[in-house]
């Protein structure tokens, strides 16, 4: 499906932030990802027209980075860290409990499109290992039980906006840092919540 006017306007605003149109490619791909939960070919065509590069050049970038999804994710993208710090803090059992609950293998999405599960490399939360991201909002200091509870909560509550602090409060443990600034923005789909491109969503 092609883009609505509102989305195109937003894209144009983003393009204006860069000296060259094509530099806006990264953020525009996030807009596409937020729209459909993956980078659709239709979106690629839109983006290519907007920034004046060919479709295959857009595709080249979109398929290079693993945070741009080529297939639609579920409402909640569960990215469980499998790198070293988490590994030595027993991320295996966190991974197992998430896998058990969702019944998903790596990169799989359930049929109702609620969860997508993936094992990822270090997400920069080693101080609070083991860590997990839900729609790129980070929770630290998880245990197998807490992660299970978190999944159940997501499944039942179906929150529209995921906010890291809320998850941390409800299910998290030790944290790497305390920034001491309250941040109640989060993300609404499998896209990081960026203020400057408008993917950050405020939870009232």
């Amino acid at each position, binding site marked *: 499906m092609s883009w609505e006017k509102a989305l195109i306007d937003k894209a144009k605003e983003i393009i204006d932030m860069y000296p060259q149109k094509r530099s806006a490619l990264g953020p525009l791909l996030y807009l596409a990802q937020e729209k459909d939960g993956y980078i659709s*070919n239709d979106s*690629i065509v839109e983006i290519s027209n907007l920034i004046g*590069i*060919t*479709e*295959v*050049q857009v*595709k*080249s970038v979109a*398929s*290079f*980075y*693993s945070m741009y999804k080529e297939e639609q994710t579920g409402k909640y993208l569960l990215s469980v860290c499998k790198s070293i710090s988490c590994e030595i803090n027993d991320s295996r059992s966190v991974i197992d409990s998430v896998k058990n609950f969702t019944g998903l293998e790596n990169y799989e999405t359930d049929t109702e499109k609620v969860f997508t599960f993936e094992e990822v490399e270090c997400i920069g939360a080693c101080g609070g290992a083991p860590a997990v991201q839900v729609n790129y909002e980070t929770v630290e200091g998880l245990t197998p039980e807490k992660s299970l509870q978190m999944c159940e909560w997501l499944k039942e509550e179906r929150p529209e906006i995921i906010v890291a602090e809320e998850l941390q409060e409800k299910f998290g443990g030790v944290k790497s840092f305390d920034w001491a600034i309250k941040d109640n923005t989060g993300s609404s789909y499998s896209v990081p919540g960026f203020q400057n491109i408008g993917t950050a969503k405020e939870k009232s």
Partner: protein
Amino acid sequence: MTDQIKINVNGSEISSKPDQLIIEACEDSGIHIPRFCWHKRMDPVGMCRMCLVEVETPRGKALVPSCTTKVSEDLVVDTESDVVKKAQEGVLEFLLINHPLDCPVCDKAGECPLQDQTMAYGPGESRFVEDKRHFEKPIPISEIILLDRERCILCARCTRFSDEISGDPLIEFIQRGNKTQVNTFPDEPFRSYFSGNTVQICPVGALTSSSYRFKARPWDLKKVSSTSNCSSVGDSVELNVSQNKMLRILGEDNEFTNQGWLSDKGRYNFEYLHSDKRIETPILVKNSNKELTINETMELISNQILTSENPNISFIVGHNSTNEEYYALNKFAENLNKVENENKVSTTNFYLSDDYLYNGFFNDDYSLGEIKDLDSADTIILWAQDIKDNLPTLYLRIKQAVRNGKKLLIFGHTNTAIKELSEEYYGENIVTNNFEFNVDLSDIPNLSKYIDGKDVLAIVGKASPLQNVNPIFQLVKHLDQNSNLKILNCFSKGNTLGALQNLDIVKGLNEFVTEFDSSKKNIVFTVGSNPVNNSIYSHKIKEALIDSDFVVSLDLFKNETTELSDIILPTTTFGEKEGTFTNLEMRTLMQNKILPTPGSALNEWEYWLILSNKMNLLESYGTEAELNSMLCKDYIDNGNIPSFDNLNKPSNLDGILNSKTINIEVKNVDSTNLEILFVHRLYGDSSSQINSPSISMLGSERFIEMNSATYFGSYMLNSDVVTLIQENNSIQVNVNINENLPDNLLVIPINRRGFQDLNPEKKVELEVAKSREQLSVT
């Protein structure tokens, strides 16, 4: 600038230009460093690491890629050390991990850099026992190109070519790591005028062309260098032949012209040579296509000439003859005028079958430029036909010049792809639909900034057949007064300049129809031309040929013109004859013969010779070489004349620049109200193209171009189907939207059949097909 620096390679000193890459400096001194990704006509990327060499650094010896490292004074390089050898083995072992090694069924085997370099530098044995990566075997990425991703070694030559050189990046690397592959976007095939070049530069058999697939093994090919007729750039090519069949054309790197590249038309337009539709014996058309012997036909023709009462003899010539053939024709015509009998020939005239012919700039008032001036000029001015369609390899040179910072200014409104390259585009606000200036030349915005006191190369020619050329002369005069101007006359077709140099006076098709006097006896020769198709004068030419007393066509195929002839004489073409070719900068290049003459066909000059003999007009030549030495006498500067001998010297393989007096007598047309702009697109439906199966479909669609909103208020969409209605004519065509066009102008490709009967000065009604989905026209 000319300062050379010294570097030490493998213990001996060599000199190199400062700023050169190590790999280039070594190459210039005869030291070969193996490579896959580096290509001298493209930016280095350092993808493959095959070119690793050891250099001495303050911290000891280090391996560096020689294709991305520049030389410096006293640099010490080792290209053969044990460390280098180990590195080369390692690189090859890695490259072969996922390579399928299907050489026995691969077109590239035998001329494959991966195969050759594995032999020369490889480890000999593989330690890889795991499964190789698999992809679906060749996938078509366009009508003419196939891609086998398993064979690809990810050198990025093809993707860089399509981005840097041809500027249509429709192929790219997709995915990452082990899954990385070259591919196109779904439903967006690699439709580029230049796609065949990627097949030639791919260092493995990943990219192949449908025309050459499984046709031959490289060691079975006979090869000869030649010059392409595709456009008047005169691209240097290598013809590959096996068992007397042309199988492939490769681009050769000629520094002055194509620099190794070819358009796909230049590369694939050769299969017609072996078409079973080729005419191989003389045909008496008017006598139910009876086949004749050469002797019988020559009798017939010479009798006609000798017995017709003071005939006007017209020669409508094409652009595929060699200089020698034009010269022989010219001599024949000269001699005809000398026949003294009661039926003395009254006139002989040459008409070049090219609607874009005009008088051009050939007198001494202006200095003529060369293609290489693109690289040294400050500003390039372009007012001509669509360069990408008509002089594709010149387009690449212009693109390269712009990439190197030259400023391109474009006048007129027929330019599409090239518009994106321009610094200033003087379209409809400056130049009207009738090609006149809207404004005073000195008021053109920014023009003086780019030309005043600068080195300017102006590429000028007619952009459309019915263009009044006075504004072009006006512009050139203005440029000349304000800049250091050089001119490149933009005649686009084949050996046009050869015709102009070797025929005494050349006129255009318009002159043919206006001078044609049906009250006289008329004998017309069409020589490798099909003027009854492809010309805006086709209609009138057809009538004239019908009214003529005797028409002889020298051609390869039957076509609209031969239908009206009395006699068809089978001739030879590109690859079947030896001769010289003169390109648009008046560089003369060799065309070589590698194929036998089909059937009883003869070269054009042989017909002129036999006819002369039959009519007792004595000629003093008997071979191409003799013709060549005769025509060489007329070159202006006898210092470096383009004789066969000279051209075959190794130092002259890039051709010889030389000039002759040129006389073109074309009257200016003055059309006041252009509604249709006739253009030539690269692909059309000429006999040669429709008889070359690999590319025949590329020119088959009938379409018109216009901008989206406006042909007198009709709103159009891409690939709408419309009916063009003008008086009694109605033609159904597809619409291609081209936003660079001005309002109220229809652009029509005259080299596709079906448009001949439209009158460019009359308005055309458009009727959109009722259901847009229902119809598709092919």
